[in-house]
């Protein structure tokens, strides 16, 4: 952990992602089983307390197992990308512990099926989940300060997102304390699900296609401008949500900031550049590519739902559970392959997961067509969507549990590419392989 000059070696945490992925995969399984069993066991109660359960689910997903992947990527790669030694082993272990205990606490309490108890005891789980984001405030600030100026042409806005995490943690706490107020839930949703997660998804696209694969789809400055646009749009979206729910601004067109955010995420990743390289058969993550493509569906659904005067929840679920899950796990697969030093053209794609999630999105769209009055969707569409997602995610969590516990092949603590991204030398001779 300490180098010869008694400074923290910025590479010491490389490989720590496995703990986070294991935690994420395990908790994904718990989440699926927990929510699935709970829903089957007491569907009526779920319907009656839909808004509270939705709020909890957003926290479990975005701050729970997705949060674990985000932190895995941050702890594993940011020190390489920014040559930063911003944290030590305590923070890392603390975050894993907080993530797991927070999720378990929150899931257990939902099984009481008692709103009062959930509101009272769920506070412990939410506090732990929020704390995992709050305790990274120091490291986030350090990474931000250590970011490489002109040396990292493709560093993009990866340092800004960790800075937003403590804010998200505080907002999560405030929103939980005031969860009975609709405005509080809506603002949390706007900030965490709509704005933050969309920006994270965009960062995954840029990080994968632009930095890792070096497809040259944007310069460092263009990605920073893109982040600025996302920030401005996101702020307008959050303020618009507040203004609408307090009756200060009643024009329904303000809701279109959501599909606009999605559209910026889609276009900001430069689909032309991506598809040019894909068609040229250059190796890439199929999961991330699929995630990128599915954004179009989220945009169209959001526009339809808003036009019909509905809450764009189907679009939101496609974006968070469909696009977000695929983008984050796609990045995770690729990062793990880098640690296994697999040649790029032999990268694992997670096809069962991809198919399961794509089917889930498809069925979800089908079910939503009924709601927005386009056609009479079959009754089983929602159940089929849930089942496909459960199969896909179940496969994923079992695969990761197997991979992290019983991995057979080669594995290196220092990932290929990132380990020498600032060196001219190429000890792994990947340039030849590519």
């Amino acid at each position, binding site marked *: 952990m300490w180098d010869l000059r008694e400074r923290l070696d910025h590479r010491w945490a490389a490989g720590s992602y496995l703990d986070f992925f294991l935690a994420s995969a395990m908790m994904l399984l718990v989440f699926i089983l927990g929510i699935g069993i709970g829903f089957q066991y007491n569907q009526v109660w779920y319907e009656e307390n839909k808004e509270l359960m939705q709020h909890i689910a957003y926290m479990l997903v975005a701050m729970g197992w997705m949060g674990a992947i985000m932190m895995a990527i941050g702890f594993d790669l940011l020190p390489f990308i920014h040559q930063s030694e911003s944290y*030590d082993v*305590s923070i890392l272990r603390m975050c894993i512990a907080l993530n797991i205990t927070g999720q378990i606490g929150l899931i257990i309490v939902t099984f009481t099926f008692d709103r009062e108890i959930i509101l009272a005891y769920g506070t412990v789980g939410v506090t732990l989940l929020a704390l995992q984001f709050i305790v990274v405030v120091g490291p986030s600030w350090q990474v931000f300060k250590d970011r490489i100026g002109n040396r990292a042409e493709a560093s993009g806005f990866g340092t800004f997102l960790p800075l937003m995490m403590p804010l998200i943690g505080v907002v999560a706490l405030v929103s939980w304390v005031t969860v009975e107020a609709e405005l509080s839930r809506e603002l949390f949703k706007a900030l965490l699900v709509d704005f933050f997660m969309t920006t994270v998804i965009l960062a995954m696209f840029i990080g994968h296609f632009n930095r890792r694969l070096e497809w040259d789809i944007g310069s460092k400055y263009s990605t920073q401008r893109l982040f600025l646009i996302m920030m401005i749009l996101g702020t307008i979206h959050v303020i618009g949500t507040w203004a609408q729910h307090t009756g200060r601004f009643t024009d329904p067109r303000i809701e279109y900031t959501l599909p606009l955010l999605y559209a910026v995420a889609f276009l900001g990743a430069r689909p032309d550049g991506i598809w040019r390289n894909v068609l040229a058969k250059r190796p890439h993550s199929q999961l991330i590519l699929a995630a990128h493509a599915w954004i179009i569906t989220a945009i169209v659904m959001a526009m339809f739902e808003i036009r019909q005067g509905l809450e764009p929840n189907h679009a939101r679920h496609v974006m968070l559970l469909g696009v977000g899950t695929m983008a984050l796990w796609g990045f995770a697969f690729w990062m793990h392959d880098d640690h296994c030093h697999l040649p790029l053209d032999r990268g694992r794609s997670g096809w069962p997961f991809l198919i399961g999630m794509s089917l889930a999105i498809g069925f979800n769209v089908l079910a939503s067509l009924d709601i927005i009055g386009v056609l009479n969707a079959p009754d089983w569409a929602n159940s089929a969507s849930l089942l496909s997602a459960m199969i896909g995610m179940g496969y994923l969590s079992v695969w990761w549990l197997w991979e992290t516990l019983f991995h057979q092949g080669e594995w290196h603590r220092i990932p290929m590419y990132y380990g020498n991204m600032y060196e001219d030398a190429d000890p792994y001779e990947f340039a030849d392989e590519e």
Partner: protein
Amino acid sequence: MGSVGIYLDFYLASAVMQFVFWAMLILRYYFGIEEGGADAGIAKISTFSVIVAMGLGWLMLVALGTGFSLWPVLYKVTPFSPSLPRVVLWVNVLGQCLIGISHLMLIEHLETATQVLLIGTTMICFSIALTATVALKLLRMGLYRSIDDGGPPFITVILCLIISVTTMVALLTMNASKELSFFTEGIFILFNIDLLWMSIGFTCALGHFGRRLEWPVLGPLRSKFGFKLLLLAFAIHITVMLADHSGWNHLWWIQLPFILPLLTIFFLLSPATLVRNALSSRSYSRPMLAAVMWMPVIALIAVYEALYMNSGLESARYLLLFGVGIQSLFGFAIWYHQDHKHQPMHDRRQPWLFLISLNGSLLFHVTHFIQETLEWTILGNHHILDGLDLALLLVAMVSWLAWWLWELLFSLHDWHRLPMFYTTIHEADDPYEVKGAD
């Protein structure tokens, strides 16, 4: 040993967080909780908040700061990474701030206040549970041997985790059935007051007189059987108290075992040796000696309360917290800070104002206790004396606050990162020539 000076941050935070604590006490008077004018539920939540903010908040910061500074020196290893103390400190402070905020909302918005209190308490408990990782690391390193070198790692782990859990359980079951809340309240008092402050008093006194001053406190016999005896005394007290709060037993002696660990600690510390050395004009921390001397007095009061009153040993526990716990902790902290300033032992400033006002306050408390229970007229029926113990306690706490603000803001010019004595604790030589200075 990079973290040896970290205690300064902890002590400063502790001093500053006292403002929040006093604000909470003022709010209690403002809301009429102290006079019994508020709703019983609100009073219960408020009392819990005050106990947690003090016992696990700013007071615990002093203990944790000392621990984080001393562990690397005592064990000659760094059993934690640099960020751990910082996270512990800030999460604890954040938790205390939230508890303070929850107190503000107690009357107008009880539900929100309860939730904010729960968030704050979770943070404080998490910060304390984190320190268990240090002890776990020491255990993994095979450093089981402890008494000569500091606190026992295993007991630290257990105590940190138990305190965190019992505090959370007590808060979460506060509004549960009467039997359950009575039981969890019992284990909260047992671990968070009895075991915690007896252990802190014992560790500080042993560390000061035995290790730091090298007085022959622990003879061979005492060190061989004493700790086993203490563990047995603790075990008896725990068992009996759990039985009492489970409603299994209503025996006349059920609260008496409280005095067993207290008196065991007192005799383990060899009071005769302490008095003999103190009378021979050797340098020592006055608050520390006062803390030890309060132990038999507390035991006497506890016996009376256990046999003749139904007060839940209220006075004995109050005296344990302030007389033994706080006094020994503060005495140890001041002495340790003076070690960092490399002050010769015979020339050390004693916190007289703190010492006199705190012990004066406790004596007034005992006097009131005697007047009320035995109906002996000692001070007459002067109403002005009613609040005098609290006023003196306030003076003691303010003097502690002023001491540290002065020390930390204006008196660090002669501060050294490595404290005298401790850095040479494992060596035969004496580079600071401390012994010469003595």
